[in-house]
C-alpha cells in the first residue's frame, strides 16, 4: 500500500478505530501523533467508535483483565450447563497496576467504578494503614492519578463515591462525612478539593454490622447512589454512639443519590417489598438494581419512579453461591469448584473461568481518557494542526 500520500483526515479516521493498547504504542510515532492521540476531541471520537468491553477481575489477590471479544474460545464440557446454552473458557491476563510499586506490600481494593456509559475510570483505594490513599485509574491506558491528601482520611463514618457527569465532562470523587455533616468533593477537571455543607434530608445512620462495600457508592448517569439506614424518629437517646443505630430505633432504608452536577442529595423512592433484606445495590442493564438476601434481582426501570421497580428473573439454578453484576447484560455467578461464570442475558452464553477467590469483578469500556485532565490540554495544543479535522 503506497501510503505516503495518505490524507491526514483519513489518518484520523483510521486511527480512531484502533484499540487503546495500539494507540499508547503509537504515541511514540511522532509529535503530531502524540498530540492527536491525547487530544480531547480525538479521545471522544475514539470512545464513540470502538466500544471495546473489557472485564477487570481480582482473583486470588491479583488483578486480571479479560477481553471476551478476542479471547480464545474453548469448549468446556465438564460444567453441567443448560443444554440450550453455549459456553466458552477464557484465560484472564495479569494486569499490573502501575502505582502498585508505591504500595508493594499492600493489598489493594477497587472501591468503585463508573458504569459503561460513563467513561471507564476506576477509583481504587489502597487500604494499607496508616494511610488510606485513593487513586483514580484508567486500566485501558494505565494512567492514574493520586487524589491529594485531605485531612478527613480517618474520619468515620464516611460515604465514598466516584462518578462521571457527561454534561460537565468531569469526574468527581466524593466523601460524605456524616458526623460533621459536610461533603468533600474532588474534581478531576479542576484538580482541586472543595467542601460543601451536606443537605441530607434526614438522619443517616450507619449499620453496626456492616456488609462489605456499604460505604462505596454506585455511579449511574450523573449521580452516585448509596443504600443508607435512616432513623425516622427517635423516642429516646441511647448510650451508643449517635451515628450508629440501635436495634430498637424505628428505621428504614433509603437510596440516596448525590447529583454530581448540582452537588445535591436526593432520595429515590422504593417499594417496601424490594427493600426487605437488601444485600447490595448495583447496576444491571444500565439501571439501578437491588439484590436481596434471597438473591432476587429488582431493577428500577424508570429512574426515580417508585412503581417501576421490577423483579427480573435470573437463571440461578443449578448454580449456587453469589451473584454479582456490573454490566448492562452480563453478570457473574460463582459456581462450585471455584469456578466463575459470566452469563449473558441476551444470547444465553456462559463463559467460565477459574479462580479461588474472586473478590471483585468490574467491566469497563476502554478509552483514552486521562485522569490527569490538566496535562492533556497542554500536550494537545501542540502540533494538532497536522490533523485538520480536529
Amino acid at each position, binding site marked *: 500500500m503506497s*501510503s*505516503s500520500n495518505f490524507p491526514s483526515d*483519513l*489518518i484520523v479516521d*483510521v*486511527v480512531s478505530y*484502533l484499540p487503546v493498547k495500539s494507540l499508547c504504542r503509537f504515541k*511514540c*510515532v511522532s509529535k503530531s501523533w502524540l498530540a492527536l492521540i491525547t487530544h480531547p476531541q480525538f479521545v471522544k471520537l475514539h470512545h464513540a467508535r470502538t466500544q471495546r468491553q473489557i472485564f477487570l477481575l481480582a482473583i486470588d489477590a491479583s488483578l486480571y483483565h479479560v477481553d471476551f471479544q478476542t479471547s480464545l474460545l474453548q469448549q468446556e464440557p465438564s460444567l453441567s450447563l443448560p443444554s440450550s446454552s453455549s459456553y466458552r473458557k477464557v484465560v484472564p491476563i495479569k494486569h499490573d497496576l502501575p502505582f502498585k510499586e508505591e504500595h508493594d506490600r499492600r493489598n489493594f481494593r477497587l472501591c468503585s467504578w463508573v458504569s459503561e456509559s460513563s467513561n471507564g475510570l476506576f477509583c481504587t483505594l489502597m487500604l494499607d494503614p496508616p494511610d488510606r490513599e485513593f487513586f483514580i485509574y484508567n486500566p485501558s491506558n494505565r494512567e492514574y492519578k493520586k487524589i491529594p491528601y485531605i485531612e478527613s482520611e480517618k474520619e468515620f463514618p464516611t460515604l465514598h463515591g466516584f462518578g462521571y457527569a457527561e454534561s460537565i465532562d468531569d469526574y468527581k470523587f466524593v466523601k460524605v462525612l456524616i458526623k460533621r455533616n459536610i461533603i468533600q468533593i474532588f474534581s478531576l477537571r479542576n484538580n482541586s478539593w472543595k467542601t460543601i455543607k451536606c443537605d441530607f434530608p434526614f438522619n443517616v445512620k450507619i449499620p453496626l454490622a456492616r456488609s462489605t462495600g456499604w460505604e462505596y457508592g454506585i455511579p449511574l448517569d450523573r449521580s452516585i447512589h448509596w443504600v443508607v439506614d435512616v432513623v425516622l424518629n427517635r423516642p429516646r437517646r441511647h448510650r451508643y454512639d449517635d451515628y450508629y443505630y440501635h436495634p430498637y430505633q424505628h428505621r428504614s432504608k433509603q437510596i440516596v443519590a448525590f447529583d454530581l452536577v448540582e452537588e445535591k442529595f436526593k432520595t429515590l423512592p422504593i417499594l417496601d417489598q424490594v427493600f426487605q433484606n437488601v444485600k447490595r445495590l448495583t447496576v444491571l442493564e444500565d439501571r439501578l438494581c437491588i439484590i436481596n438476601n434471597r438473591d432476587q434481582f429488582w431493577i428500577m426501570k424508570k429512574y426515580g419512579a417508585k412503581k417501576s421497580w421490577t423483579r427480573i428473573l435470573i437463571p440461578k439454578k443449578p448454580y449456587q453461591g453469589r451473584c454479582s453484576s456490573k454490566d448492562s447484560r452480563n453478570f457473574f455467578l460463582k459456581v462450585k469448584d471455584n469456578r466463575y461464570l459470566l452469563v449473558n442475558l441476551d444470547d444465553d452464553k456462559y463463559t467460565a473461568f477459574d479462580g479461588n477467590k474472586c473478590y471483585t469483578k468490574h467491566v469497563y469500556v476502554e478509552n483514552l481518557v486521562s485522569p490527569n485532565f490538566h496535562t492533556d490540554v497542554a500536550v494537545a495544543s501542540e502540533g494538532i494542526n497536522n490533523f485538520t479535522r480536529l
Partner: protein
Amino acid sequence: MSTAATADASSSGDTTEGSVRLLTLQSEDGEVFEVKETIATQSVTIKGMVDDDCATSTIPVCNVTGRTLAMVIEWWNKHEIGAVSNEKELKEWESQFDTIDDKSDRDDVYDLLMAANYLNIPTLLDCCTSAVAEAIKGKSTDEMREFFDIKSDFDEKEEDALRKENQWAFEN
C-alpha cells in the same frame, strides 16, 4: 477481494432505463461506466452534482481508476435498498474487507479508501477505515512510520521517556 465489475453497462447509449436515469462516470484512466442514478447517489459528491443539475453529461471521476470504480459500483449495487434481501448476507459480503492479507488486497483497500473519500461514500469509508485499522493495529512504531511515511521528530531522550511511560503497550 472480488474485482468483478457489475456496472449497469447499457450498449444502446440511451441514458434512461424506464423511469430510472443513468449517469455516465468516467474513471481517471478513461473507462466509462453507466450507473443508475438511484445507486450512484450513495456518493454524497455525486448526489450534490445531481441536485445541482450538473450531472447531465459524463462525470469525470479523477483520481479513481477503472478497476477501483468497478469495485465502488459493486459496493453501490450491494448496498442499494432492496438489492440484498437480508442483512446477514450483506454482512458476509462486507466481511471480505475485514481481512487484508496480501499486498494486492491492501492496494485494493487503499484505492477503495481514497475513492470512498473522494466520492464521499460514508458506508464504504467506514468499512475501509476499520479494515485498515485492523491491518495496522499490531504494528510497531517503526512500521507505522514506514506505513504512513512519517519521520519521527522526537529526540532520543524524548522518545525513550515516552516509551518508558507506555512500556506495557510494547509488551505482548
